[in-house]
């Protein structure tokens, strides 16, 4: 009975077990061979560094499941951060109230960008890649214009002290678990999966697909804003360069390594976050070993292709069985 339970759990959570296995092997090998890897400071540092990518991967998981695409994440993150920091620093004396309202504005701005994306995609039926591509340029442009030539000044260290690495780790664990539950345990999440599987059928089944898609893009925008909150804490200010366009590669590959299907309908937030851990972990390890950064990029690229290889192999394998 217990064995059956375990077996069933294993079948339902193959991706999780696979990811955990990979991470466990990686951690084991590294903790033995790399000095200073298994230290409290480094592990907490690493987890905090994962946070921004994990947040954005969480957002894009929702989008990918609906067969969508959002490459504007990093740009939206930068733009909302710049808006919020510009707001905060516009006051002569900055108090906690300003910081809190700044955070609110950051989240609202992220949600607003997501709303525009969602509106164009759900209501106007535009192609997601094109919409978010334009949003990427618009948001980057907005961030540079608002950020001004000289860049925004720094905000009080109270902000960074509050969002220290421990808060960030707790935040990422709580929020992504909550969103994971939203996706797998609630009717909204189920509707997201329905849409990814077959949007037409979902509509016929009486689901307001347009609204669900709209909300999904808003969630994605808010997730980017959450990443912004963490990044603002790291540099105590905001810059257009905070969200380089190439960062979306890290985000998407984190989700894909986590088993989220680009064809829609499959994936979990939890696994995408573990994917983010793997991608960011590579960077951290490289820094610890002191490897030339060229190799980091090389390895990241190979990982993406490797992960795609696995997923296409899986598809091929299953399609043989199904036919």
């Amino acid at each position, binding site marked *: 009975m217990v064995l059956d339970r375990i077996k069933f759990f294993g079948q339902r959570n193959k991706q999780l077990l696979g990811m955990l296995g990979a991470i466990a092997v990686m951690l084991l090998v590294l903790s033995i061979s790399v000095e200073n890897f298994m230290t409290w400071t480094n592990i907490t540092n690493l987890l905090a560094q994962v946070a921004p990518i994990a947040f954005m991967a969480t957002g894009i998981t929702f989008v990918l499941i609906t067969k969508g695409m959002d490459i504007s994440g990093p740009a939206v993150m930068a733009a909302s951060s710049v808006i919020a920091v510009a707001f905060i620093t516009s006051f002569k004396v900055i108090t906690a109230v300003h910081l809190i309202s700044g955070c609110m504005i950051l989240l609202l701005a992220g949600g607003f960008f997501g709303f525009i994306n969602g509106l164009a995609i759900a209501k106007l039926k535009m192609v997601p890649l094109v919409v978010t591509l334009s949003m990427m340029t618009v948001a980057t442009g907005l961030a540079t214009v608002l950020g001004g030539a000289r860049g925004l000044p720094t905000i009080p260290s109270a902000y960074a002290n509050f969002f220290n690495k421990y808060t960030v780790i707790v935040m990422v664990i709580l929020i992504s678990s909550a969103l994971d539950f*939203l996706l797998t*345990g*609630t*009717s*909204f999440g*189920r*509707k997201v*999966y*329905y849409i990814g*599987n*077959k949007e*037409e*059928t*979902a*509509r*016929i*089944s*009486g*689901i307001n697909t347009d609204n669900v898609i709209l909300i999904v893009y808003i969630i994605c925008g808010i997730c980017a804003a959450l990443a912004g909150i963490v990044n603002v804490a790291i540099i105590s200010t905001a810059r257009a360069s905070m969200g380089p366009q190439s960062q979306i590669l890290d985000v998407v590959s984190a989700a894909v390594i986590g088993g989220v299907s680009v064809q829609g*309908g*499959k994936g979990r937030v939890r696994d995408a976050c573990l994917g983010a851990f793997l991608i960011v972990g590579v960077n951290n390890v490289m820094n610890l070993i002191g490897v030339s950064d060229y190799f980091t990029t090389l390895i990241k690229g190979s990982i993406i292709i490797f992960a795609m290889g696995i997923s296409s192999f899986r598809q091929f394998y299953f399609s*043989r*069985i*199904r*036919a």
Partner: protein
Amino acid sequence: MEKKSPLQLKNISMTFPGVKALNNVSFTAHQGEVLGLVGVNGAGKSTMMNILGGLLQPDKGSEIIINGESVKIKNPRVAEDLGIAFIQQEVAAFETMNVYENVLASDFDKWRKNRSPFLNKKAMKEEVRKHLATLDCYIDVDTPTHSLTVGEKQMVQIARALSQGGQILLFDEPTASLSDHETQKLFEIINNLRTQGYIIFYISHYLDEIFEMCDRVVALRDGQKTGEAPISEINKEKLVDMMIGHFVETTERKNSRDKDDIILRAENITGVKFPRNISFDLHKGEILGVWGLLGSGRSELFNTLLGFDKMVEGTISFNQNGELCEINHKDLYQHVGYLTEGRHHNGVFLDMTIAENITSSDLDRFASKGIGILNNRKEKEESRKYMKQVNVKAVDENMIVSKLSGGNQQKVIISKWMLKDPDILFMDEPTKGVDVGAKAEIQNLIFDRSEKGVSFVVVSSELEEIMNLCDRIIVIAEGKLVGEVNRDDFSKEALMAGIVKQEEKVENEQVQVG
């Protein structure tokens, strides 16, 4: 006259992982004959066609002999070279391309200008016009394909087959998406081709068509040949017997219920193109048939009524607590179920479990208030209950739907709507692509539910089915309501009368305009 037999199939077997789709099937096709291939879903008809078309490779030991030579059909290109042309079930067109490009898609290389690398468009168009003319079809060859009707696309597909110069034509359910008029035209064309000496394979679920068109039939069941006979020597019962082994009786519809309670009243429903100004009443527990040729606006009527297409004009009233009140699409949809025509297109979530499919129609029932946490146990229990009621044949409710057969998938869709427990269930071709056994089960289910007070609106292309099923039938042509027939007056003539009248009228109008 002695018939030549240029196509022989010997011991064709085809194994998919875990399934034997075809098992040592052998038969012969003669020149100038229409050979019907019949069988229920999953019997192996389409597999056979795909093998002939070069899309699938049969197991070792299988042999295909054309004109006395054993051949291997490795890919569609080889099939084409051997003179085999395949007209698919789903109308397959390149939507973004022109008609003439569609027709000649299989061999662009042939149309180069005097060995230069450039295409000779003039000659191409000329050729296509020629083929379309033999089909009595005069569409402009420069028309973009996405603006054609389904029937026209089918013609384009047949023209493509003819342009390949094949001698063996495979028709896989060609009439599935054609209107009656277009079907008749297609039959003329097939007859025409028969006299020209083509070998024609004809697959259809409609037994009427088989008897009308074919010279000989081969029946398949579970991948095995269960019978072969000239059409003149068998009757329907015998053919069904060959197909499924036994003949399933459907229960007779009992006397229809008392009809005072009107549950839905539609007035002047008008869409962008179709429907035009349609009004009807629906009573509680009634099974209302909607009869019309394909392309007459039947599906559009449903879509407009339920708000999936834009409604230009019209009012819908719904019986709430004994009173007919006007209602908008969104609120109406709370009370209805809608089984659509295209099962794979918009009927099921193929990659999700049966339970997830069944509960999709009324998910909120399983969710808590507020953030909507799902109660998985309750969800599965309920799904099991409905699976049992509808008799879905599956291991358990966690099975992925794509692994079920077509009939069972259809039953899953029906359970899905049962679960919602709607007041009205709209069904567009509820038994399309479903084998005879499942068909009867589905019909019995409809009867059973209507007894319990659920109203049905059913569209079906099969006259027999709709007459068997319904209490009352409204007839639609050209998007307009042209007649209403009660159960006592059901007859083919009565139903056709309205349509004929409408068609004559349209023709007259066209004459006047011309």
